[in-house]
């Protein structure tokens, strides 16, 4: 991206002033190098977002922003109903409520090291992963509707996990106002055998070691110390979310003219929040969020069972669960007034700061854990929400490294075997049903997660707490 098009408004913040059809400016967060390297299409896509009705303040892009369908990935935009605001299926994405869940193990690296391969094999065997994998749970119509309204609370009631887990999940594990009647039969059919499956692509389960602590006090509150072993699960709402996204995107594309919305890009398809279509999408999308929360809860339970066989005392309590593809109603200060806004985060993580009323008591003093996934060979991070985040980005932070090259390019550059061997030299064990998939997800195909996280920290979006290094990666 040409920096000459931007106005620098801080060491880590840049602005595209509103012009033409833009209703608000764009604010891009990142350091000079990240912004310079950012795809020009992020500029165009973020500008497009600012033309949508009812957008307030600005369209924000996170330091890991890259091209997405309609909205850039790493994009945040909030809409006000009273200003004719819209909800956009493209602003949430196909993988509704894709997110990261991190669990403590109470174990140290030395305890894991001797059984690393055994653990990898057991996790790979017990957690359905990759194309064509199905879960052991098959939901009938009533079970499906209960899952779609109950989320992780439903999963716990079915015996997958404990009540205590629910305090460590956004929305306490259950997104309210989800209506299964808004979800098509086809979407439900697509999910029927996919509960408790990891999926493929960039989804994974990793055993990780805490290798660095940046903020001792907050890390203590999060229960993290150097040498601790944790587990992170990255996946979303599986076939259900994809089908909801596909169907509503089509409905919104074909209805745009009826709503008088001029779409600069069909993937920006949206509907007025107060329209029947907008309300149906919100009700269905919330079911997608519940599906993702239930899915990660079940996978956590399967993981606990594997660890329980090898370490009889291991409980694997939940640190936190975040979603990074959502639209949620949140209260923010707008022109000095407390206002309910529909905040879209696509490839961006909610990052509520200390004292936010929606945080569990345990994190109230330090802010929300913000879980950032890296690539197989680099690192993941735990960050914490900042008090000033609300003014900067509606309390949002980055979500990962972001791809630096296409799958196509990655496949031409690396073989799966080569990637696996390189990682083995770094003592990282990989299990995957597809070597081609491993090649496409090669660490070199991703941007520098350290630079992304540093920029997020320095911009004040969230602060660095801990760095995690992968030991075992189960890759979809």
């Amino acid at each position, binding site marked *: 991206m040409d920096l000459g098009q931007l106005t620098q408004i801080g060491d880590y913040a840049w602005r595209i002033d509103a012009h033409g059809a833009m209703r608000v400016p764009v604010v891009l967060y990142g350091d000079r190098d990240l912004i310079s390297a950012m*795809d020009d*299409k992020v500029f165009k896509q973020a500008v497009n977002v600012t033309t949508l009705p009812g957008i307030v303040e600005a369209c924000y892009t996170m330091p890991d922003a*890259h*091209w997405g*369908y309609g909205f850039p*990935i790493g994009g945040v935009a909030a809409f006000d109903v009273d200003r004719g605001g819209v909800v956009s299926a493209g602003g949430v994405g*196909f*993988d509704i409520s894709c997110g990261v869940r991190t669990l403590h193990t109470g174990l140290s690296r030395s305890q894991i090291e001797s059984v690393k391969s055994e653990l990898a094999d057991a996790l790979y065997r017990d957690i359905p992963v*990759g*194309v*064509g994998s*199905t879960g052991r749970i098959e939901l009938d119509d009533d079970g499906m509707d209960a899952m779609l309204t109950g989320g992780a609370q439903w999963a716990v009631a079915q015996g997958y996990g404990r009540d205590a887990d629910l305090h460590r999940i956004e929305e306490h594990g259950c997104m309210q106002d989800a209506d299964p009647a808004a979800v098509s039969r*086809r979407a439900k*059919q*697509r999910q*029927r*055998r996919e509960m408790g499956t990891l*999926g*493929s*692509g960039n989804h994974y389960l990793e055993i990780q070691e805490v290798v660095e602590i940046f903020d001792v006090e907050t890390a203590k509150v999060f229960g993290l110390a150097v040498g601790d072993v944790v587990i992170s699960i990255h996946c979303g709402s599986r*076939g259900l979310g*994809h*089908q909801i*996204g*596909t169907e509503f*995107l*089509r409905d919104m*594309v*074909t209805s745009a003219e009826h709503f008088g919305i001029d779409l600069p890009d*069909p*993937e920006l*398809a949206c509907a007025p929040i107060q329209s029947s279509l907008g309300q149906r999408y919100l009700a269905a999308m919330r079911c997608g969020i519940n599906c993702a929360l239930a899915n990660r809860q079940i996978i956590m339970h399967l993981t606990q069972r594997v660890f329980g066989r090898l370490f009889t005392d291991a409980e694997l309590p939940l640190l936190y669960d975040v979603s990074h593809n959502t639209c949620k109603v949140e209260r923010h200060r707008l022109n000095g007034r407390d206002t309910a806004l529909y905040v879209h985060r696509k490839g961006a993580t909610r990052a509520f700061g200390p004292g936010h009323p929606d945080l569990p008591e345990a994190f109230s003093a330090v802010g929300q854990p913000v879980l950032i996934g890296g690539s197989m060979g680099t690192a993941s991070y735990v960050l914490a929400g900042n008090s000033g985040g609300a003014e900067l980005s509606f309390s949002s932070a980055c979500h990962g490294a972001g*791809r630096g090259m*296409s*799958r*196509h*390019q990655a496949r031409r550059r690396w073989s799966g075997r080569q990637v696996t061997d390189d990682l083995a030299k770094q003592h990282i064990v990989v299990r995957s*049903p*597809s*070597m*081609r*998939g491993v090649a*496409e997800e090669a660490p070199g195909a991703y941007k520098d997660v350290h630079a992304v996280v540093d920029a997020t920290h320095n911009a004040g979006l969230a602060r660095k707490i801990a760095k995690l290094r992968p030991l075992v990666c189960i890759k*979809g």
Partner: protein
Amino acid sequence: MVGEETANLERDSSGRRAGAYYEHYAHDADIGVRGIGDSLESAFAQAAVALTAVVCAPEKVTPAQSVQVVCDAPNRELLLVDWLNTVVFEMATRCMLFSRFDIAIRRNALSAVLWGESTDRSKHQPVVEVKGATYTDLRVQRDDQGRWVAQCIVDV
């Protein structure tokens, strides 16, 4: 990557590639699928072969079982997206892969028979699930040689 039907690879008198074939093309994080053929139907069929080729090598998929589908849309472009999303849906819900597509299109209404078999992870070695076909880089048109080209980006 360029995939081609094994038959009809000879070139005609004008030097153009004859027969129907598919291509993939790189696009940011995802991948583009493109079907090319002398008829709209063959271009749509090849776009679906390209979709399968995102997941696995189509030649590994035996066309042993058939599934009938229909879809319709307001225009050709939306019909392509609907068609590919119908194939995605059948792949996901039946745990099948498809390698042959017999298609009829009348006034933006499509009926088709998908031919394939159940996903076998050791035989097919599937790489990645396709989440859905998108409106990005969506084109259904004749090229300068008069052949139909049907393409879009698929989200994986």
